[in-house]
């Protein structure tokens, strides 16, 4: 009997997942605020249904009380977050809060299945993160001259990035020296530096009038990337680079910066490969070889990626069902490779829908950037959108062998305190921009209403 219930629930999850995803896109085509709100309310219902069925399956299979308690705690926090955030910020984007809640919940579901204690830890930190980052839009709204602090962003970012080289503080993991440890608490400074980096680039580009300004800005941006190369964190370096190129492209409106930037990046990769393939980037070469020919190295460098492909392939389109697969066979399945674990147990259809949800959040962010008329906020929002979606591309592309794996996390879903907190901060900044946009629009509307009243009064 349990078998049948679990099997059926698996399909319900897929159906609601599909419906949720459709609503993510029909939001953009909705005609007015009313139908958009209707869309968003339905989404919330789907979130809770998906979450409910997933936890029901895990409870029936594992028969542990703690799963039920954990489930209740998550529901409580999710409802409070959605309600309170919107009663404070009436102008914030509800699609973004829905997606934040949903992605976090998907992460909890998978982590509960992989390692209960990690899931609890993630839940605790993410909840704290939700509370703390809720203040960010309010604080930023009070600060008037964010764009004048470029020196601060640059120095703070570089200083934070360099902390990993301080002996006794920085530690190496998976071939990259990009973690710091304070007591038993570890974090990845890069996750927070990327926000400072985006602010720094945006501030620099807003103020830049002469070519010299742009070159100074570029040189410091390059310094960030060089530090990342020294940390052997190539995934992050690529991420920073793409953000930088896109933001320059936006600021200058010249396609040459887009083409030149991407071309230069590709050239640098080829050059770096030729010069340092045996020294600085030896661990990268292992990954590239594993990508080109994973099954030849399936017991060594290709182990991760082949295990990941086995997981995705064996799970199939509809998945093995929660608790029925073997995600623990994939190394770092709780973090970088969580997408494979999701595909294995919840199904490739679920995974594909998840990709679309990430893309819809990205489109929501670029929409906000487009509406924003203040250059600094526009650049920042756009930079965050690019950083976010490119990280998703690096992660999912990496675990599916679409591109070589670079060791970045899947925003909000992967286990990782730094990653979750920094993504929440990024989303809060976007919400802040959206609030500004709406305030400006309100001002215009009010002015129009005033004139209309004047005209009518005459």
């Amino acid at each position, binding site marked *: 009997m349990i*078998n*049948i219930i679990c099997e059926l629930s698996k399909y319900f999850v897929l159906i609601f997942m599909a419906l949720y995803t459709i609503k993510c896109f029909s939001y953009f085509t909705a*005609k*007015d605020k009313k139908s958009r709100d209707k869309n968003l309310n339905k989404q919330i219902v789907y979130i809770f249904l998906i979450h409910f069925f997933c936890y029901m399956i895990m409870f029936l299979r594992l028969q542990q009380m703690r799963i039920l308690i954990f489930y209740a705690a998550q529901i409580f926090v999710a409802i409070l977050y959605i309600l309170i955030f919107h009663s404070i910020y009436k102008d914030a984007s509800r699609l973004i809060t829905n997606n934040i809640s949903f992605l976090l919940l998907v992460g909890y579901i998978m982590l509960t299945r992989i390692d209960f204690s990690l899931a609890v830890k993630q839940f605790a930190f993410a909840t704290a993160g939700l509370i703390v980052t809720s203040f960010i839009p309010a604080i930023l709204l009070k600060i008037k001259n964010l764009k004048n602090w470029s020196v601060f962003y640059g120095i703070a970012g570089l200083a934070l990035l360099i902390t990993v080289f301080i002996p006794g503080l920085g530690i190496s993991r998976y071939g990259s020296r990009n973690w710091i440890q304070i007591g038993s608490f570890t974090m990845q400074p890069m996750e927070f530096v990327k926000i400072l980096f985006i602010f720094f680039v945006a501030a620099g580009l807003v103020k830049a009038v002469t070519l010299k300004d742009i070159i100074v800005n570029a040189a410091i941006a390059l310094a960030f990337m060089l530090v990342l190369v020294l940390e052997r964190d190539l995934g992050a370096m690529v991420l920073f680079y793409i953000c930088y190129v*896109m933001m320059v*492209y*936006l600021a200058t*409106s010249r*396609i040459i910066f*887009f083409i030149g930037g991407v071309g230069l990046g590709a050239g640098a990769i080829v050059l770096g490969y030729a010069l340092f393939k045996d020294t600085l980037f030896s661990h990268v070469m292992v990954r590239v070889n594993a990508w080109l020919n994973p*099954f030849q190295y*399936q*017991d060594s460098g290709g182990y991760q990626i*082949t295990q990941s*492909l*086995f*997981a*995705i*392939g*064996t799970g*199939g*389109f509809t998945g093995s069902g929660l608790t*029925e*697969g*073997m995600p623990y*066979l994939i190394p770092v399945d709780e973090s970088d490779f969580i997408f494979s674990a999701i595909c294995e147990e919840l199904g*490739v259809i679920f*995974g*594909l829908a998840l*990709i*679309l949800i*990430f*893309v819809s959040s*990205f*489109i929501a962010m*670029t929409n906000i*950037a*487009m509406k924003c*008329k203040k250059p600094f906020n*526009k650049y920042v929002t*756009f930079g965050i959108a*690019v950083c976010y*979606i*490119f990280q998703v*591309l690096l992660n*999912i*592309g990496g675990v*599916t*062998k*679409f591109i070589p794996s670079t060791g970045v996390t899947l925003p909000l879903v992967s286990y990782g305190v730094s990653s979750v907190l920094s993504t929440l901060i990024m989303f809060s900044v976007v919400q802040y921009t959206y609030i500004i946009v709406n305030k400006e629009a309100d001002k*215009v509307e009010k*002015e*129009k209403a005033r*004139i*209309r009243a004047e*005209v009518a009064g005459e």
Partner: protein
Amino acid sequence: MKKKKQESAQKLPENEFLKKEREKEEKNKIKNKPIIFTTYVMVFMFLGLFCYIIYFMVVDADRVIANSGNKRQDAFEEKIVRGNIETSDGVVIAETLVDSEGNETRNYPYKDMFAHVVGYNSYGRTGLELSMNFYMLRSNINIFERVKNELREEKNPGDNVISTINYELQKAAYDALGDNNGAVIVIEPDTGKILAMVSKPAYDPNNIDEVWEEVHSEEGSTSTVLLNRAVQGLYAPGSTFKILTLLEYMRENPDYENYSYECTSSGVFNNVSIHCASDRVHGVVDVAQSLAKSCNTSFVNMGVTLDMEKFNNLCEDFMYNSELPYEGTYSRSSFVLDENSDISEIPQTVIGQGKTQITPLHNALIISAIANGGVVMKPYLVDSIENADGAVVKKYKSKSYKSIMEPSEAEILTEYLTEVCTSGTAADYFANVSYSVAGKTGTAEYDNQGNCNSWFIGFSNVDDPDIAVSIVVEDYTSNRTSGVSVAKKIFDAYYN
């Protein structure tokens, strides 16, 4: 929404503030172009990723998850009764027996006869039990039966693997090899189907636990029963290698038909003394007679004239020092002679002694290619997958791997190899048979005391080859069982 705005903007008189806002709006629209473009680029890349994943699932996934490194296959055992392995003529050679209490045991009715082909289903698995593991743990019986079994919480029967192995040929090869150590591999030259594969000494897979324990004990540490000699055994090719020497000689000397050499049973080449087998004097020989009589001195005489760089290339074309198109564990053959080698190594090497090593599988591919007009077919062991009711689920097709010689060269070699079996070293065995044979014998010394292994590679029905064999019998010096005698028994079994 846009329309409405424009309408209201048109109707209303504009003050300074609204004008400024409208200008800002227009400026913003231009400013937004990079964002729109970037969004499209990103969405396009995700579209690529999206399609890639679907492509992977639809096209590649089956092959990927069948990989023996995929431990998830084991989980299927909880829901599926492992399928059978059968020969192409319908004999079950591995099956899972389920007793009344639901305990499963893997049974191999023919004990050690199919040991290395079938492999075993524990200790990490080998053979077809390993390579076909995934397919035997999948059930393709009809959906109603599957649902019925699932509701009853009963296991579904897994699919059966139909191998290319022919029971009669396997039995003939197994019997012909007798108690000797060695290996036999029989291939259908025009398809690459492996019809028989025997390696001795063998083990009984029904008793794999004891075999495993023994092999891993101190006394058993030198045991090679688990080694599949047909694909993993490396042997000096002996005179079977002369085919390659001859081909290279033919390529370098277009007038090879005029070649003539007077064999006096021994000679010194590059300061190395060479003798013909049993000190026989072959007299004046041409290339055909040199091969038929397997005249060592004549071959060394040809061999020392060869361009070693080209010869090395030919050997590598013939898959020495390289991968074989075989999916499964095998050893790589080696040929180390090249233009930088000491010339004193040439005489022994060109007659198949020296450092050259080859597997019976590799030699089978070479002789099959000659039988197949120069084209190597990919050797394969599985013909099809059937569901428990016998309906074909998946059919494996024969594939060509590469052409290693011109059809004309294959034709000439066939002619010469036929002479080996009509007037040469193998003539005695095929004097009164109903079929024609082309092949090459070999006696390869494996130590300095004159102890030899006996080779035969060849194919039957020369005009339209039916089967090709590659046989090595170890310790010919003491057991006197020659490769060619084993070959005859296999051909006899095939044609009777």
